[in-house]
């Protein structure tokens, strides 16, 4: 920060302390850009990219929690102004005097200003081939213009995760059972490719089976979080990650995956203390039913147990006392239509004590969006596959986010990407 910036910011800080001081005209300084995130915003999703790219350029931003649905304050430099114009992002010019008033408003309500200091280095866990389903986070990152790198099993087991601040998991099956599509989609080229690729990777990495190798990956991911990483998972990666972690010396994989049938007493023998979010789940024994356990409340692939979609409601948190949870739920909509995934939701009674529920379906026995800490890091789980495609089927075309620039579901994903930028300390990994 140069001296002039420092003086200007000092003025702002002082003025915020006293309404009388706020009437004093500030020395002229570069105006600010307020990026509203309420209904005035033309493209909510790209607005996150605008803030992210500013951080990448070494700039600093602020996130005004609960102010205009989570607005951003950015310096109105040429690059940021150009970026906003090119991407059609609504911004409002803000003079220093207006900013002082605004800070006073933030002080008075359930709002807060969180500095965003550093663009997190983002990794997406994805196989090298293209799966026949879309990945909501990859699509959101691409659409918002947030750079990321792909990692897969060799990188995870090779300790490369330490170089990233944020890791995303999506439709991965960490129990090593190929999403339990093995029997129902037998012969499908994408499944054949998936099986061959996973088996070859397990062999190459020296594991006796895919389930054994995937559990090692799950343990490495949990270790990454333990050491201070930020983990965000969606869809079935949430449930299977915990199942794999808890399946220490327990065979939870069907015979087609590891050559031996699933332990008939697996549910009783799981080590839930090793899982991040869930406990005491009943595992699905049938290898044909693409359901893992009763962690998922909706059971979309079980015709007898499938639950209808409703909508979920975001919780309110105190911005000043609980800024992390507040950041994760910033949105211009409080109630959001639900969407299916192989794991759609999380049964309330299977949550570990201490898990923070960020969104649930009122009156239903499941929740949608949860958060927790593990060691020095945090994890966030969001059920469902694609917030703008409630019934996403295998082989469906990917969602075009330019048709959903205001998607409240996708906003939740992007809150997670930006949330590590608010962490002031460097990761101790």
């Amino acid at each position, binding site marked *: 920060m140069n001296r002039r910036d420092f003086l200007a910011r000092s003025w702002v800080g002082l003025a915020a302390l006293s309404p009388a001081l706020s009437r004093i005209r500030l020395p002229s300084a570069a105006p600010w850009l307020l990026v509203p995130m309420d209904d005035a915003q033309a493209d909510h999703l790209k607005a996150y990219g605008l803030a992210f790219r500013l951080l990448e350029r070494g700039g600093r931003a602020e996130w005004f929690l609960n102010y205009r649905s989570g607005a951003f304050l950015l310096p109105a430099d040429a690059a940021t102004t150009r970026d906003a114009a090119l991407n059609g992002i609504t911004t409002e010019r803000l003079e220093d005097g207006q900013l002082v008033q605004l800070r006073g408003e933030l002080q008075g309500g359930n709002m807060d200003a969180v500095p965003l200091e550093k663009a997190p280095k983002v990794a997406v866990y994805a196989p090298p081939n293209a799966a026949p389903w879309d990945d909501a986070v990859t699509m959101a990152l*691409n659409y918002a213009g947030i750079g990321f790198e792909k990692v897969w099993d060799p990188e995870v087991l090779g300790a490369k995760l330490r170089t990233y601040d944020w890791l995303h998991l999506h439709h991965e099956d960490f129990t090593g059972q190929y999403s339990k599509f093995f029997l129902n989609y037998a012969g499908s080229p994408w499944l054949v490719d998936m099986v061959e690729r996973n088996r070859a990777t397990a062999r190459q990495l020296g594991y006796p089976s895919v389930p054994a190798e995937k559990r090692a990956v799950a343990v490495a991911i949990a270790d990454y979080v333990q050491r201070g990483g930020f983990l965000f998972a969606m869809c079935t990666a949430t449930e299977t990650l915990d199942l794999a972690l808890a399946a220490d010396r327990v065979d939870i994989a069907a015979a087609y995956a590891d050559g031996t049938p699933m332990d008939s007493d697996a549910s009783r023998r799981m080590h839930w203390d090793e899982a991040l979010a869930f406990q005491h789940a009943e595992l699905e024994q049938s290898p044909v039913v693409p359901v893992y356990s009763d962690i998922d409340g909706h059971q979309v692939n079980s015709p*007898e147990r499938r639950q209808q979609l409703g909508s979920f409601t975001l919780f309110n948190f105190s911005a000043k006392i609980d800024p992390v949870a507040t950041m994760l739920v910033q949105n211009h909509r409080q109630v959001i239509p639900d969407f299916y995934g192989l794991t759609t939701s999380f049964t309330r009674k299977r949550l570990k004590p201490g898990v923070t529920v960020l969104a649930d379906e009122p009156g239903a026995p499941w929740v949608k969006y949860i958060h927790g800490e593990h060691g020095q890091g945090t994890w966030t789980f969001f059920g469902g596959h694609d917030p703008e495609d409630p019934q996403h089927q295998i082989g469906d075309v990917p969602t075009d986010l330019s048709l959903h620039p205001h998607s409240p579901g996708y906003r939740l994903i992007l809150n997670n990407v930006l949330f590590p930028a608010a962490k002031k300390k460097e990761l101790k990994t």
Partner: protein
Amino acid sequence: MLVTAVAPHALRGQDPAMSRAFELERRGNYAAAAETYRGVLAGRPGDTAALLGLERALMPIDRRAEILPQVRAALAASPSSVPVLGVALRAWAAADEPDSIRAVAERWAAAVPGDETPYREWGAAALSRRDRPGAVAAYLRGREQLDRPDALAAELAQVALADGDYPRALKEWLLAIRRLPGYRVSAVSALSQAPDSVRSDLLRQLEQERGLNARRIEADLRARWGDPLGALNSLQAALPDERPAALEALRGLLDLLRVQPGREARVAQGRVLELMAERSPGSEHARFRLEAARAYTAAGERDAARRMLVGITDDRNAPETIAAGASTTLVQVLIGEGKLDEAARRLAEHRADMGGDEYAALRRRIVLGYIQAGDLARADSALGADSTIDGLALGGRIRLYRGDLAGAIERFKAAGPFAGDREEATERTALLALLQPIEADSLPALGHALLDLARTDTAAAVAGLDRVAAGLPPGQGGAEIRLLAGRLATAIGKPADAERLFKAAAVPEAPGTAPAAELALAELLIRQRRHAEAVAQLEHLILTYPSSALVPQARRRLDEARGAVPQT
């Protein structure tokens, strides 16, 4: 079903306790209703209405298993009552007591020999406990006891589907349909969801089966799986001699084909209608032939369409509406074949049979046919003094192709935005935008180039437009004509020409045209995978012309060029 069937009957009862229980239930106070029913059952343990009421009241509050004491008492009071046995079976299912379920089901079956219901309920109870093997066992036990190989086939088919075992499901559906043909629709609907990998096996399995039912299922599945001609062949080979049965089978396939897209579906639709016509007398015969002709026309099978129409148009016994429809279709076929004089003659002959709008529309199609043939004099003559807005729009085109720009503009403006369909109106607006910056009243070279375009000689049109544009300043039509030429060059696969033309159109002297030319150029670059150049072009457009209506589209293309959204 049994539960709801008994309730209204019971409502008529005079028992005050029962009336109170029903009222509590109606208000949604299920716990109090259950207590009241219990009170009635304490005095009359065999009261079926009260027992069913108690079951109904406990269900929404998820306390179904609490009915067991009353069920036991009712069984003791009425050991062979079918409603009581039904409640008992469901109660033990709720209590998860499979042995008791089985015992009640067997007892119920003994009370109603030959009835599938006890086994169906037994299976349903197993399914409610997610016990599919148990359900199959119950159904098979029923099949054995009833001594009918097709008993409970539909239920077994449903379980097979839940297991993903499509071949087994098909086998059971065939048994079910043999007994009750109405199951065919459900069977086809369920089996059509089969994954690609098992479809050929299912069709092979069906080919082994004889009879119309199997052929109809095969035809329906082939139609749903995108093989309409295969569907027709399957059905045609098995059509029975009896006219009503054959027509019913053909009508079923026709309903499916009507909603299938594509040329093959239209051909198959035409053939099905032809087969229906062969089996139908009098006016039905003519109507099916006419519909077949329309389907063939839609498929581009003009010979077949003409074959269907022969006889109907000149048949004095054919109903008036059908003859008129046939005349219209025949004129359409003739226009499609380029036999414009014959089409005009036929149209004149049958003018009296047609509505005014229909006649005018066909006449305009003939005019368009003459334009496409390059015969502007006959086009003008055929149009005559048509002063409708569609006629004015068409007259404007004829003037335009003759190079009379002032006359064309006058007629296009008079026609306004409502002539023709939306596409025609948009095209006319684009032509007006092209002509208005040009100061000259007459420009035969432009008219000639646009006539080349109307006659689908796009390469000649591009060359002609390029020459015309060279003689006009960019702001006075030169840029707009180059933009059109560039778009045409893109369409015929001449990207180098297109790029040159777009660049020449994207000049500051033509600020109304430049954003569109820049966007067109960027789209061309994206198609050529020159993404970095496309991004630069789009960024220039957005930042230079921020208020242009094309900016949102430019942003969309920018996203595509950056890989931020899927390519469209």
